[in-house]
């Protein structure tokens, strides 16, 4: 893990089997998460990233536990 935690950027993933379309993620980070118009399942915008601390907050705030951080191989 980076020693400069706040500066590190990470990608996010949504488990579509767990997502139930509550929309907290889109409310908090509308540039990163989009709920589908047809199915209300959250999807991550291509290439989007967040600081690790913000990403952890998003993971925590997801009511259905569907969001995770994608760890990039070092």
């Amino acid at each position, binding site marked *: 893990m980076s020693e400069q935690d706040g500066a590190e950027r990470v990608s996010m993933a949504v488990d579509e089997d767990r997502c139930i379309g509550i929309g907290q993620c889109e409310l908090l980070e*509308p540039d990163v998460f989009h709920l589908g118009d047809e199915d*209300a399942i959250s999807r991550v915008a291509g290439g989007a990233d967040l600081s690790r601390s913000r990403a952890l907050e998003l993971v925590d705030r997801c009511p259905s536990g569907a969001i995770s951080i994608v760890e990039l191989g070092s």
Partner: protein
Amino acid sequence: MAETTKGPASPADIASPAIYLDGIPHEGFAAIREVDGLVWHPYGDEGDRSGFWAVTRHADVREVSKNPDTFSSAIGHTNLWDLEADALEARRSLIDSDAPDHTRLRRLVSRAFTPRTTRTWEGMARDIAAELVEDYVADGGGDWVEKVAAPLPIRVILAILGVPTEDANYMVELTNYLVEGTGEGSSLPDDAYGNSTPTRLLPFNSPASHALYEYAEKMRQLRMAEPGDDLVTSLLEAEADGERLTAAEYRNFFQLLVFAGNETTRTAMIHGAMAFAEHPDQWARLQADPARVAPGVDEVIRWASPILHMRRTASRDVELAGTWIAKGDKVVMWYAGANRDPGAFDYPDRFDVGREDNPHYAFGGGGPHFCLGAFLARMEVQVLLEEMLARNVVLAPGSEPERLASNFVHGVSSVELAVA
């Protein structure tokens, strides 16, 4: 501290509906929060034996809410009293379900309540708010509940559902009877509205639920014959994983929407208006800085805590806050306690629209049963405040509120306010 059959006895009564005639017993909640571990609270016919674990700290409410496999919504009931299996099944809705049923149901209805969908209703809600506020000012104030807080959310949810405006008063009447069911019981005879179903099989044990079911069915037939651009149509057409709502699911969901989309937002608007009347300095902050309105909305909702609690039932033996809970025990999340927890909020007893971080649990404790209408409720409260600000409306205290004897809804049936 006294020992009960389960654990330390609660130092305060937070379950007797009559207590709430004087408002939320905040001192009682504070006393319970300060006890190490959880306290056991008596309830119902069997007193101590039919009691519950009172979960009142913010972090503990979160723990229960976010672990739905352990703290089930489908066992027993989500209200304090248990239901027999047939009653539970007949009433089952989104609220009383666990995964995978809950997942399936929630997905069917979620798309109707996303942030983006909610924004498409904003103009409609704003027009209704503006009309009600202008009439209220023209009247020089009066009963805020009757004139603004009750009609606004019901007119909005009915417009969303596609129910004709002229039926709004009938819907308000029915939901008022439902709230009674959480207190001292229904004042209606069992056969009111032509009901012949045993009331124990009806939501809130109320024949008013039968009337709402009938109304839902009438709407279903109308929209099956002639689809509209409304929520009833989209519910009937909603499909997830190749499945649709069953007739009973649709009916229970309609009933839930009319109740939850109306009573809870009304309650937030009542306590918000009372708070701004009592704390004019906070209203002045919104007047000075419109950017404060959005965070102010969440403070109104924390302050109001419209739903006081939800119950779960332990599906296994489990430790929470250092207390052992046995499989089958009732575990009750008291949002009213969590929202005043000094462990989560600075000066929790202060109404402060300037809070930067407001992790309130008025929409639930952060788990999968998170309020479906959260964005809608926020939007409605926000347009109401904005329409008042646009007209320089300043509220001042009038009469003491007439509160409901309910441990479930932080309800007020009337309160006179003045226009300063």
